[in-house]
């Protein structure tokens, strides 16, 4: 393991090489609540080049939404503390005043939210919601802004765009509303788009249309995009790189094809195996990840995935693994016993021999009732 490169929590390891639009270094967002400190994002480091797409994947509570909100500076509640560094085009985002951030929101970075039903104002026409920030940022008159709004609605494939400006959100379907949200996000020509579970609330057919639309707009505008989702199926064909998060940490990050071909982290494998696949025969037993995501106030010691992990050994429960790589330096993972290595295989075999429940779950030998109680 001499060839391993250590990245991870060491600060300032990522230097802006002029290509990276976004450089995030050791970003932490903690929320103070009565029971203690919720470490929603706990030391995330990555960079994203212009025009590239990064998929951020994890279960609910893995910190993926808080991460994108922290980068944009949207966590404004008084109990939230964000530390670390977010360089956007060489400019530090952390510590900016809300006035400074306001100048960037919409024009430089924009976000499409999960629920198109609630992210639009129900009592304001979509025309006004579309033109509000266009007029604010680009200093346009009403007439000119309306023309821009119509062009935007057309670009997101909304039929009869001219007649839509006077509509209220409730007059449109979920898919149409999400198109409007995308049009709003794109209105001022941002260079960085965050899409936070943009299709989770939508049907598969509409999901496909919306994801295609996002990909098309991203290509046309050469935007960088962060696509946040819990579904590896959504990011598989649509991202350049994928970052898997668990309990506020990055557990694996790799170029998309490499991740699927040589996944290293047992959590990534668990996520992939849990998805029912259309190519499998009916009644194929799914390999579920046993247990539940950890409590972020009192996370387990050592590797936070260890209580659910089929590969876990004694060291996993005491020592937290750092991000490292073998072979390709683009592919990093935080695991003591990675998949596809002799140590990983030995750990799994030992756990199966010892009838360790998560290992039994990984080979489909655990009853469904036992999967929860692990």
């Amino acid at each position, binding site marked *: 393991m001499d060839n391993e490169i250590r990245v991870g929590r060491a600060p300032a390891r990522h230097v802006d090489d002029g290509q990276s639009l976004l450089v995030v270094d050791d970003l932490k967002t903690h929320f103070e609540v009565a029971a203690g400190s919720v470490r929603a994002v706990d030391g995330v480091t990555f960079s994203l080049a212009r025009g590239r797409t990064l998929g951020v994947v994890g279960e609910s509570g893995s910190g993926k939404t808080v991460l994108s909100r922290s980068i944009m500076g949207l966590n404004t509640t008084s109990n939230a503390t964000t530390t670390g560094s977010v360089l956007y085009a060489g400019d530090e985002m952390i510590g900016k005043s809300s006035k400074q951030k306001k100048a960037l929101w919409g024009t430089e970075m924009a976000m499409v939210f999960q629920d198109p039903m609630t992210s639009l104002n129900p009592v304001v026409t979509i025309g006004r919601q579309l033109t509000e920030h266009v007029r604010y940022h680009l200093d346009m008159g009403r007439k000119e802004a309306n023309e821009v709004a119509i062009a935007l609605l057309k670009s997101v494939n909304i039929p009869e765009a001219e007649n839509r400006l006077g509509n209220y959100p409730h007059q449109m379907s979920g898919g149409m509303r999400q198109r409007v949200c995308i049009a709003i996000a794109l209105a001022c020509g941002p260079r960085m788009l965050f899409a936070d579970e943009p299709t989770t609330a939508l049907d*598969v057919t509409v999901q496909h249309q919306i994801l295609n639309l996002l990909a098309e707009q991203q290509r046309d505008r050469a935007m960088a995009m962060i696509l946040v989702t819990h579904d590896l199926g*959504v990011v598989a064909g*649509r991202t350049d790189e994928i970052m898997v998060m668990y309990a506020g940490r990055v557990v694996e990050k790799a170029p998309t094809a490499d991740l699927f071909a040589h996944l290293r982290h047992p959590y990534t494998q668990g996520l992939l195996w849990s998805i029912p696949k259309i190519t499998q025969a009916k009644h194929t037993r799914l390999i579920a990840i046993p247990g539940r995501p950890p409590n972020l106030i009192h996370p387990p010691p050592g590797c936070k995935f260890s209580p659910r992990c089929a590969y876990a050994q004694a060291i996993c429960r005491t020592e937290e693994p750092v991000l490292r790589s073998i072979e390709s330096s683009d592919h990093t993972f935080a695991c003591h016993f990675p998949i596809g290595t002799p140590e990983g295989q030995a750990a799994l075999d030992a756990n199966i021999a010892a009838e360790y429940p998560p290992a039994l779950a990984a080979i489909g030998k655990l009853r469904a009732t036992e999967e929860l109680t692990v």
Partner: protein
Amino acid sequence: MAGSGTAHLRPADEVLLQVNDLVVEFRAGRNRTIKAVSGISFDVARGETLGLVGESGCGKSTTGKAILQLPRPTGGSVVLDGEDLVALAHEEMRTRRTRLQMIFQDPISSLNPRRMVGEVVAEPLNVWGPKNKDEQWDIVARILDQVGIDPGPARFKRPHEFSGGQCQRISIARALVTGPELIICDEPVSALDVSIQAQILNLLEDLKAEHGLTLVFIAHDLAVVKNISDRVAVMYLGKMCEISEADELYANPAHPYTELLLGSSPVPDPSVDIDSVRVIEGELPSPLAPPSGCRFRTRCPLADEQCAAEEPQMRRVGEDHFVACHHPLIEPWPEGAAAESMVSMVSVGSKPQGDPPTL
């Protein structure tokens, strides 16, 4: 596609549930009617899982609720074990309810937040089971244990103390406590993470085997439906498009709509070329004024005048595979063709074998 007909029904004595020409309409004011379900028929054999798929607004949840007579359907019959539930008086229907149960989509809002889990699960027993609290708890504890919830600690907790996946297990326990034969699962896993979704699907399979359950599983995710179902029915705008044995449906979709739905389903494999997949254009038409003829024709790449003029009827295209389409992607079985579909047989049948229309 998206038509009527009963060619796919099996003999009534072989099935537990038979739904015949079910119609559910809602009044929408100004003399307008929402045609949520317009004459669908299907059956479910004992111990079988029927998957019901379609987009939002296609009437799949309405169908599920209409089976339970919630509300009573506008027309048609729902025959459970030889008895038509639609014809039953209110009080008679009430006594049949222990045999039919439902699991809902949102596990958290389907449990009363102010009641303890022990009470939530025991509530059906207050109506139909032993009234003695200790006897009730014996049953509840056994069922909770079967769904993987530790009964002791859970008894006095409230739903907010549980995660979404655990709440769904509690909902399943509540549905099982009266010992039902048929459970309608209305999108039971759509609100859950993929990892928890797999746990719940595995649990449903185990419980089905243990309790000898028959399931109607409603969902919009085709992969989920395939995993759990023996047969799958595809619905579109209140009509049935296609019904088939599950593996056959996914291997050889006969309906253009089914094929497009399959293409839209995300595949966790980066080597699949997404750009080559056809997308269904447009949106579901309004159920206030559904299109004439085949309801899918406005979005169908194969639609022609016949589709606008004439509603397609169910006809056989495989061993256990039926489709309601004038231009199915698989050649219909000539011997299985019902008299009513002979008209369309002439036009389709004139094409050479093995050359189905392509999208």
